[in-house]
């Protein structure tokens, strides 16, 4: 199907709140999933007969399982403070992309079926029936939310549209109206172990090629180990890191840092994926299943540390949910057999799980890495805070560490760093436009429009400060930027991994000794 023609937004000097343009983003939404992808996840293959009852029942279940859903549905006062906070609204001017209006698609049905006022005075309180049109609106507009949570920062009650959009998607899946992109990917992740469906041999080949390439380019025998039992660190990274540009340069960077530290590490062919799309479709169960693969890999490979590569929502799931979902973390009570099993194996001198940025940052602080910053002198770098990292996680255990650590790392390896405008970074960061399961070509229009506010801030620093490099620590951001940067007349190669900058500047001087190798082999054997 040919993509719909649409205008690329102009980049203004200041972002103005657009006039409302009702219905401009109306449409069919992303490609629908089919039975082949739906059924393995336990969802009906197509829209079921009694979809309405099932949907209402599911809504009831969700509001009683999630305090967020219940409280957020009841507490909105329609103050409007969030209306101008969503990048999709700013870029598209469709009023249904205002966070509160998006929630209201769900809330109006909640009111109709679950509240006194909505049952008896529907018109008065804006309660609505769940009919075909409403369901279409759900499918369309809840797939125009990247679950970036920018709106939640600005709501006086912390109402998080992402939670509502996850709930809505869960209902949609339950009635058989699934989204192809997410559900197809989830199928691969849950059977093969990664979103790309790369089986073990392909992965091994890729990594061997990479080793050769790195040795050729940098003259050091940097290794990219797979399934190495007894290694200290298990690295879980988004699978885009294995092959796509610019992601792979980040992976090269991680390898060099590990090499320089002399630590033993491995990736797992069984759990080769960090990105957990279960979050996007709102399913606790599926998110847990994906997390269980990581738990199993950690147990099987007998690692003592679990580390996460550069991926935004992978880090959110890892940081905030892994401990709960599958025990990858710390602090389980000894009565908690399930979590203790893994936690007894992990080394709690380090945070579990740890972000690769935290690890590199720590090495830099301890003076274990040396850099030739001038290698990055052709670059003036700015950093894009990825939503899930910025608004939902922490790094380094210090307040705001998720903003400080990546910037520290960049500044340690580059001479020229500038930030974008304050209201567009850190907790107020603008989404790249492609998160939340929107990174699919059939959603290109909303992706481009939603990228506008980020591109606008970037344009300003390009103009005023000569920024020519945009660094990020999220696989989705990197892929999305590669696609949308040229649409706004930027160089598509200006997007880089933070560890690509590290990779360029790091001085490799610690040849891995044979003793080290022997040690790893020995450790593996004694287990």
């Amino acid at each position, binding site marked *: 199907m040919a993509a719909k023609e649409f205008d690329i937004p102009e980049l203004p000097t200041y972002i103005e709140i657009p006039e409302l343009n009702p219905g401009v983003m109306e449409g069919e939404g992303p490609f629908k999933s089919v039975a082949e992808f739906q059924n393995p996840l336990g969802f009906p293959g197509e829209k079921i007969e009694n979809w309405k009852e099932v949907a209402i029942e599911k809504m009831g279940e969700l509001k009683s399982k999630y305090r967020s859903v219940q409280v957020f549905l009841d*507490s909105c006062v329609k103050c409007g403070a969030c209306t101008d906070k969503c990048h999709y609204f700013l870029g598209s001017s469709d009023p249904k992309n205002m966070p509160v209006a998006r929630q209201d698609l769900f809330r109006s049905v909640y009111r109709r079926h679950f509240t006194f006022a909505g049952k008896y005075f529907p018109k008065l309180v804006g309660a609505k029936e769940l009919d075909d049109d409403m369901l279409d609106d759900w499918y369309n507009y809840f797939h125009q939310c990247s679950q970036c949570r920018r709106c939640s920062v600005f709501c006086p009650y*912390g109402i998080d549209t992402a939670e509502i959009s996850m709930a809505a998607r869960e209902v949609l899946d339950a009635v058989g109206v699934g989204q192809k992109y997410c559900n197809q990917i989830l199928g691969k992740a849950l059977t093969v172990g990664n979103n790309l469906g790369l089986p073990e041999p392909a992965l091994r080949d890729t990594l061997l090629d990479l080793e050769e390439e790195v040795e050729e380019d940098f003259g050091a025998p940097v290794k990219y180990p797979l399934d190495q039992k007894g290694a200290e660190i298990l690295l879980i990274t988004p699978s885009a890191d294995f092959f796509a540009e610019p992601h792979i340069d980040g992976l090269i960077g991680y390898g060099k840092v590990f090499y320089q530290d002399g630590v033993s590490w491995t990736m797992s062919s069984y759990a080769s994926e960090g990105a957990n799309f279960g979050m996007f479709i709102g399913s*606790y169960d599926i998110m847990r299943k994906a997390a269980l693969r990581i738990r*199993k890999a950690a147990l099987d490979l007998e690692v003592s540390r679990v580390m996460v590569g550069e991926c935004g929502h992978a880090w959110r799931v890892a940081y905030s*949910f892994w*401990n709960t979902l599958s025990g990858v*973390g710390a602090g389980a009570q000894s009565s908690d057999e399930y979590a203790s099993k893994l936690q007894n194996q992990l080394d709690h001198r380090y945070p579990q799980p740890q972000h690769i940025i935290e690890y590199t940052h720590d090495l830099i602080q301890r003076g274990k890495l040396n850099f030739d910053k001038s290698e990055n002198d052709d670059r003036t770098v700015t950093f894009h805070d990825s939503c899930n990292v910025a608004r939902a996680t922490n790094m380094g255990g210090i307040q705001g560490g998720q903003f400080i650590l990546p910037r520290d790392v960049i500044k340690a390896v580059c001479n020229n760093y500038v930030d974008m405008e304050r209201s567009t970074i850190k*907790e107020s960061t603008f989404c790249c436009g492609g998160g939340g399961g929107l990174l699919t070509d059939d959603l290109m229009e909303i992706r481009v429009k939603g990228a506008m506010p980020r591109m606008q801030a970037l344009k300003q620093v390009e103009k005023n400060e000569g920024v020519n490099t945009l660094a990020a620590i999220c696989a989705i951001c990197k892929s999305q930027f590669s696609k949308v940067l040229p649409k706004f007349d930027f160089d598509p190669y200006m997007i880089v991994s933070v560890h690509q900058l590290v990779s360029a500047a790091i001085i490799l001087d610690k040849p891995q000794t044979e003793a080290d190798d022997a040690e790893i082999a020995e450790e593996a054997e004694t287990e």
Partner: protein
Amino acid sequence: MSTISIIFTALFYISLFIFIVGMGKKIYQFWITPAPLKIPTAPTQLTQTGVVFRMIREVTLFESLFKSNKWIWLFGFLFHFGLLLVLVRHLRYFIPGDLPEIFLLIQPFKYAAFAMVIGLVGLLVRRIFVERIRYISAPSDYLMLLMLIVIGVSGAIMTFTDNHTDVMAVKAFASGLVIFDWANLPTEIHFLVHLFLVFVLLAIFPISKLLHVPGVFFSPTRNQVDDARKKRHISPWALKQEQDHAVKLEQTIGKDD
């Protein structure tokens, strides 16, 4: 007792009953609904103390609202702060006998009613004239503001114009409600309207957006400590699921070849 007094006395208890039972049920519902995952929003707090201070800033200063929109903040703050002062001033009617001295401190702030009404009018004007806010408004959103404005204005009329009510009679009536020693109430129309709408407000509290009052304290993005890596945070339904499936999952997953 006059008929009207009997009706208003009854209305008071009915609306209070609805308020207490309704709010009790709602708060209980909020309370027992599990929060299975940690979802605090930045600026996340790493300690319980941090969370408490963040919540205090939210409910006293409307911190997040201040970040998002200065006009809504200004009007919202004027309204809520005015309302708070007005409410405290009203306690003198309900407390039988002399007022404890601490409340005397606030009695001079009778102008709070103006702050309240100005705030409300500001919010209403925004709702009518700002396109985006008009778009998200339902009839009840306007009605709620209008009702509060009428309450505020009718109260102010009694304080600031010659249409004073008999304050002693009001005190006898209101404190009578508290100690079940019922008395007649003054019957000026603006007083009756004032009182009636207050009762309506009490009664619709648990079924309207006024639920934001308890809601803010239960909001997981605001009230959770961001310590997910340090503590396992598992809700009862998730734990049950884990116990049912843990073993099975560990065996089955991975045996896909």
